[in-house]
């Protein structure tokens, strides 16, 4: 083979190699990109499904709370007012008391109507929603609760706030239903770009490996995972249960 032919052959091989590299690169990157897009689409759909489910659960819980409040709070006040009216027939000077009771009932009713207004509910931030929840516990004497906020509130995605709220609502619901706790303390600590939520009760607690712990917490854990928040629930029998939820706002790559 002549020298010139060898050079020609080498150049042909190099050219072929370059074309092959371009084709391989194009195919591999395109395939990987499509795969990632499909995965992202799936994750987005799963998130939307979970979000819708969460919103339905919050709505159900709200309806349950309204029913409770109407029955236990406003209903009781109206019953008391009725008794007072009946008694006022004999002693009309007690009518002031009746007016006061009806006034309290009306105030409670107004507060409730404000709370269940969908527009008002939509615009609530996590801090406001939690504050209302804690106020309600105290008002209805479900459990003595405190709510503390530290730091400057962060501008968070509302969808993420809904999920965080639902996780906490589930924890509160478990505390009220099962823990027999007398106190509940909730702390919201904003430390940009992270939010750390701590909720503690002094109830009966449960063993970490109990079936209750397994089933009850799985849902909360799944939701926390969905928004890439860290959830840790610790419990000691006869001492109480504590929840620690940390969520950091994702930082955009520079």
């Amino acid at each position, binding site marked *: 083979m002549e020298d010139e032919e060898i050079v020609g052959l080498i150049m042909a091989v190099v050219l072929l190699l370059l074309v092959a590299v371009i084709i391989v690169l194009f195919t591999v990157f395109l395939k990987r990109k499509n795969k990632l897009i499909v995965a992202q689409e799936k994750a987005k759909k799963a998130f939307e499904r979970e979000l819708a489910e969460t919103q339905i659960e919050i709505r159900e819980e709200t309806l349950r709370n309204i029913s409770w409040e109407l029955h236990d709070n406003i209903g009781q006040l109206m019953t008391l007012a009725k008794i007072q009216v009946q008694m006022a027939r004999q002693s009309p000077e007690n009518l002031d008391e009746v007016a006061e009771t009806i006034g309290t009932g009306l105030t409670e009713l107004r507060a409730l109507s404000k709370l269940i207004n969908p527009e008002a509910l939509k615009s609530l931030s996590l801090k406001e929603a939690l504050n209302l929840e804690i106020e309600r516990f105290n008002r209805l004497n479900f459990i003595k609760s405190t709510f503390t906020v530290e730091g400057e509130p962060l501008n968070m995605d509302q969808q993420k706030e809904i999920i965080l709220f639902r996780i906490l609502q589930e924890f509160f619901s478990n505390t009220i239903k099962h823990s027999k706790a007398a106190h509940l303390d909730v702390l919201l600590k904003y430390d940009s770009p992270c939010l750390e939520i701590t909720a503690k009760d002094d109830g009966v607690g449960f063993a970490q490996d109990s079936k209750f712990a397994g089933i009850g917490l799985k849902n909360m854990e799944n939701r926390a995972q969905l928004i890439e928040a860290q959830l840790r629930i610790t419990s000691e029998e006869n001492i109480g249960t504590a929840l620690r939820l940390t969520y950091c706002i994702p930082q955009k790559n*520079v």
Partner: protein
Amino acid sequence: MDAVIAILEILSKVAEGTALLASILFYSKYKHTALKFLPILLGYMFLLEIFGWQLYNYVGFNALFYNVFNLCFYLFFFYVFYYFLHKRSNKKGVVILVGIFIISLIVDLITFDFVHESLLYSYITGGCLIVICVILYFLEMLNSSRVLSLRQDLLFWMGIGLLLFYMGYIPVKITRLYFASLQNTFMTLLIMHQVLIIILYGCFTAGLLWKMKK
């Protein structure tokens, strides 16, 4: 043949000049990254391409300036890949590659005259090592969500250019060593070299333009 080479030489200089211009115009897009020295490197390269022969005629040699450029070019890209690779093992890999490059440079300095001759071993070794860096970077990209915005990734385009250039030019360089005396083959290899330069700086310009659109 001569006309083709003349046209390609002009085109390659245009490609280099365009890349330099784009790197200056869109400097603000990448000035906070390791690529901040890119305009200096491209400026040096452009001046060398324009005044390379004049320099040879004036001082009697120009290999020194090309050797310095190649050395800066390789070290710059090692630094860039070290900066942009995220995986610790890959960063360590780049450090090892730099070590290998330095060894080849030492061998070159012993074998060749740095002022009057083009360095060979470090050029070929450096080219191969840059190809490895590009592959590491591409693998990292493929395993992250960065693959979704690869058109806007300046280093992706630079990587494509470097990969194609060195995969094409290293065989050309080696072939040139053995067949440089043949006029016809020398011309063929020169054409190939010019085409590869156009591809390399074309990719640089494309990356900078996409970066501007981001």
